[in-house]
Each structure stands twice: as structure tokens, then as C-alpha cells.
């Protein structure tokens, strides 16, 4: 054997070992994901039926426990309002940091606090809203919009951080090109920076929305758990995570089954939302 072939054989071997290790690691990471999805579908599909989506929880101990309509609609309403607050605010903060604040002292401080906020446990946001708004005199009490506020606080740092990354990735040469054409900075941002960063912005927003839609803790003592469907964000409002939380602790198998069905519903909702948003952002990128 020539020396050349010897080196080649050793390299091939180490290459094989490295590849195998990577494949094993990937496989291990996939195991819990697949198991969760498998269990969710297996347990959740059984609970699904037309009336599951069209009726509210009945609260009856015997007989039909009812569906999860109020929880689905409540989650949509609460998360929609939270998104309407957190997404513009978060992208606005990120735009400030990237386009104007840059490495200034104030921007650095803001960045630090955003990081701190990312690490705050979600229950702290719920507690904060509970103390400041639910226990408040005058307009106290549980309400859907207070749940939205708690979720918005949770979403804000996630949106800001991911949007900042997406905006930073827009090449400086594009900003320069637009500035050199005589565009004022706000126009550069609106016509060049934001459209170029759109796919990244959408990804970050989706992460935040998915995270918020699955949060239980901020909702338990802000929007609480109720049975009835309501469109009134000033009233207590049901949500999927809260419904799951409530059902899964019950002694009745039918209620636990409803929790599985609700969990699967939540996952499917987020999946649909993610797919739609990706399609939209991909299309607008080409157009």
C-alpha cells in the first residue's frame, strides 16, 4: 500500500465515523418529536368530532362534556390582539436598534433589557398583569384583553430579537444603493430593508405567535378559564391552553380525551398558520 492510500483509508474511516455520529444525533433529536406527534394524533383524533368544534364545554358531570369552541375562538381572539400589539411594537424597536440606535448607549441598554425580558418566566408576565390590571380598582376583574397584554409582553422580546437579526442580515450595500438614489432613510427602510427582511421577520413573528398561543401561565389569572364563547374581550375568556390545563387534571376520561383533542387542535392551528404565512412571504418576495 502506498502512503497516499493509507491516508485515504484513515480519512475515509474518520469521515464514516463522523457521519454516523451526526446521523445518530439527528435520529435522537427526532425521537421525542415523532413520539409527541404520534401520541398527539393517536389520542387527539379520537376526541375529534363535528360537535367537538361547535359546542362549548357543558360543565355537566354526567353526559356530554361538550366541545372546545369557546377555547378555539378565545385563543384566536386573545392571540390576535396580542399580536396586533407586539408585532408592530417589536419590529419598531428592532428597526430603531438596527437603523438608528446602532451601537449607541441607549440602543445597547435597550438590547440588554430585551434580552432580560426574553428570559423572564411567562408566569411573571401573567402575575404582573394580574397585580396591575386584574386586582386594580375600577376596571379590575378578569378579561380577555388582559390576557392579550400578558401575551404581548411575552411576545415583544421574541419579535424584537428575531426582527433585529433579520434586519441586520439585510446587506449594507442595499441601504447604500437606496440612499445613493436620494431616498430618505425612512423610505429606504420601507421600500428596501423591510421587504428584503420579510421572510426573516415572518419567521420570528411566527415563533412568537406559536409561543404565545401555547402559553398557559399568563392566561390563567388574566383571562382565566370559562365555558362560554364570547367575542367580548372585556369579559373573561376561554383559551385552548387553559382548557387543556383544566381538563387534564380531571378524573373523567372523557375530559382528559378532550384535552388531547384540544392539544391536537392547537398544534394543527399553528401548523396551518405557519404554512400560510410562509406561502405569503415567499410569494411577496418574488413579486
Amino acid at each position: 500500500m502506498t502512503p497516499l492510500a493509507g491516508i485515504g483509508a484513515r480519512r475515509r474511516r474518520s469521515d464514516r465515523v463522523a457521519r454516523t455520529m451526526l446521523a445518530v444525533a439527528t435520529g435522537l433529536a427526532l425521537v421525542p418529536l415523532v413520539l409527541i406527534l404520534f401520541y398527539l394524533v393517536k389520542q387527539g383524533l379520537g376526541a375529534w368530532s363535528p360537535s367537538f368544534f361547535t359546542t362549548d364545554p357543558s360543565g355537566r358531570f354526567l353526559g356530554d362534556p361538550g366541545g372546545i369552541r369557546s377555547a378555539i375562538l378565545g385563543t384566536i381572539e386573545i392571540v390576535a390582539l396580542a399580536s396586533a400589539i407586539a408585532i408592530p411594537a417589536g419590529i419598531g424597536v428592532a428597526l430603531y436598534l438596527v437603523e438608528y440606535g446602532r451601537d449607541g448607549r441607549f440602543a445597547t441598554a435597550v438590547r440588554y433589557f430585551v434580552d432580560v425580558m426574553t428570559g423572564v418566566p411567562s408566569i411573571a408576565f401573567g402575575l404582573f398583569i394580574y397585580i396591575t390590571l386584574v386586582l386594580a380598582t375600577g376596571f379590575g376583574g378578569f378579561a380577555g384583553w388582559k390576557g392579550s397584554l400578558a401575551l404581548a409582553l411575552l411576545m415583544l422580546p421574541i419579535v424584537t430579537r428575531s426582527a433585529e437579526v433579520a434586519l441586520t442580515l439585510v446587506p449594507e450595500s442595499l441601504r447604500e444603493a437606496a440612499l445613493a438614489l436620494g431616498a430618505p432613510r425612512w423610505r429606504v427602510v420601507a421600500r428596501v430593508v423591510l421587504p428584503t427582511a420579510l421572510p426573516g421577520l415572518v419567521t420570528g413573528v411566527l415563533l412568537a405567535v406559536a409561543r404565545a398561543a401555547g402559553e398557559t401561565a399568563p392566561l390563567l389569572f388574566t383571562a382565566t378559564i370559562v365555558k362560554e364563547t364570547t367575542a367580548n374581550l372585556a369579559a373573561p375568556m376561554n383559551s385552548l391552553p387553559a382548557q387543556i390545563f383544566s381538563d387534564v387534571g380531571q378524573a373523567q376520561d372523557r375530559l382528559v380525551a378532550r384535552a388531547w383533542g384540544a392539544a391536537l387542535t392547537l398544534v394543527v392551528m399553528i401548523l396551518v398558520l405557519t404554512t400560510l404565512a410562509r406561502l405569503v412571504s415567499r410569494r411577496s418576495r418574488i413579486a
Partner: protein
Amino acid sequence: MSFQPAKTGMTDPPRTTHPTAAPTPAVSSGLGDRRAQTRARSVTLRNLHAYYGDQHAVNGVWLEFPANEVTAIIGPSGCGKSTMVRCINRMHEEVPGARAVGTVLLDDLDIYGDGTDVVAVRRAVGMVFQKPNPFPTMSVFDNVAAGLRLTGTRGSELRDRVEHSLKAAGLWDEVHGRLAQPGIGLSGGQQQRLCIARTLAVEPEVILMDEPCSALDPVATLKIEELVAELSRRYTIVVVTHNMQQAARVADSTAFMLNGELVEHGPTGRMFTNPGDPRTEQYVTGKFG
């Protein structure tokens, strides 16, 4: 004194009279014919200094770029030639911590003067960058139209000017069938000509080119160089280049910079055959840099 865009670009006859439909050779069509020999404005630098924080990048340059001529700036990397050029359309100040001191005149207008609008400066002084940088989210058409839309140009006038600019940039024949496709789908040389078309569309008088061919192959480079010669009939052009053959091919006069200072400036032929400064001679004969 407030900055007024040049009369020549703004009070022209109605644009519907452009000979857009006339079949003309790619390069000599469009703006070049329409306003052949229009006098653009000259650029004069008086004791220009530029800084990045504490770093003194351009050190007291006095230089004139005559109207409708091509001036090449040569010099080794880091000598301040790009920085100097970026002071002419005030792009230098976009870099955090950067500032410029001195006078830059567009004919007799001080572009750093009080009341001078930086946006108006950049409309009068266009820029083409080293790396082709078309807007990735925009089509070929929208790339060229991007600057025009800022001034509210719409409809058929917008289409006319996009077509004209693409013709003037020698790109129309290659892209007129795919104006709606993404600008980044073009080849590197086409992208750079797209960027030139984008710059021409806002009708500047001075065009700054910062190493416009350094990312291009020789064929695309040749096309850009032919274009530069053609465009000088209508525009004052400043080309920063690393390539001395390129300077010799395209420039009427050449300036040599070293360590932030202007060493020598003169007619291109003399600069390369009989330079006055020994450092210029060393550089153009390849002894350093």
C-alpha cells in the same frame, strides 16, 4: 442658499417626444443621443479631509473633475480613494463615526453648505458600487424605477424613463423581454449595468463609480468601459479603479492617491508615460501597490 437640481435635467422638453421607438444601436441609444453633448456640472474638491473616528482617511485633497470628462482615481488599497469619492455624494457620512471637512463644489454650489439638501445632492450625484447591488425583492423594471418612484414619477412617463435608462445602460436588448423577473436573476455584468441604469434613471449630472468592474469578468468589464465612454458625453464621471489598464482605457485624466493624499493628477496619457512624481511612476510601473 438652497440647493436646486440642475436646470438641464429638469426643464427638458416633454418626455413623450423621446425617440423611444427608434431602433438604435444598444449603446448609443437613449439618453446619449437625446441630449448629446449636454454640459453636466463639474466637481471641485477644496482641501477635503475625511475621517473615520480618529482615523484620517483623506488628507487635504484639492482636485477638479471637469464636466463631461472621465476622471480615474488610482492608488493602492486603503489609500482613501473610495472614501474621497463617497464624500462627493455625501455617502461618507452614512458610516457611523465618519465625517468630512472641507469644500466640495458642484459647479459653484457647496454640497456641504448650510441649507444644502443631502437628498438633492444624491439625486445630482449618482453612484455605482463595487459589487452589483440590485434590490433583491424587486423586478428588473422596479429596480430601475426605484429612484424615480421617490419623486412621484408614475405611469407611462415611468415606463419611458425606465426604458431609456436601460437603453442608455446598454441593457435593454438583453432584458426587455423579462422586465418583470427578479433583478438578481441577471448575470453579474448585467446586474452592474442594471445598477447603472438605476442610477441614470434619476438623471444625475455626475456619476461616481467605485471600482465598478472589480467583481466582473473581462467581457462584462469591456461592456461597462464602453458604456463609461459613451456616458461621458452627458455626465461627469469619476471612476475609482484598481486596474491601471482600465484607467488608461477610459479616463481623460487620472489622479493618483497614496495614504490619503493626492500625489499627482494629470492627463491620463502623461500619468502613465511620463509622471511627474517618482511615487506615481513606481506605482504605474508596478513597483508597489
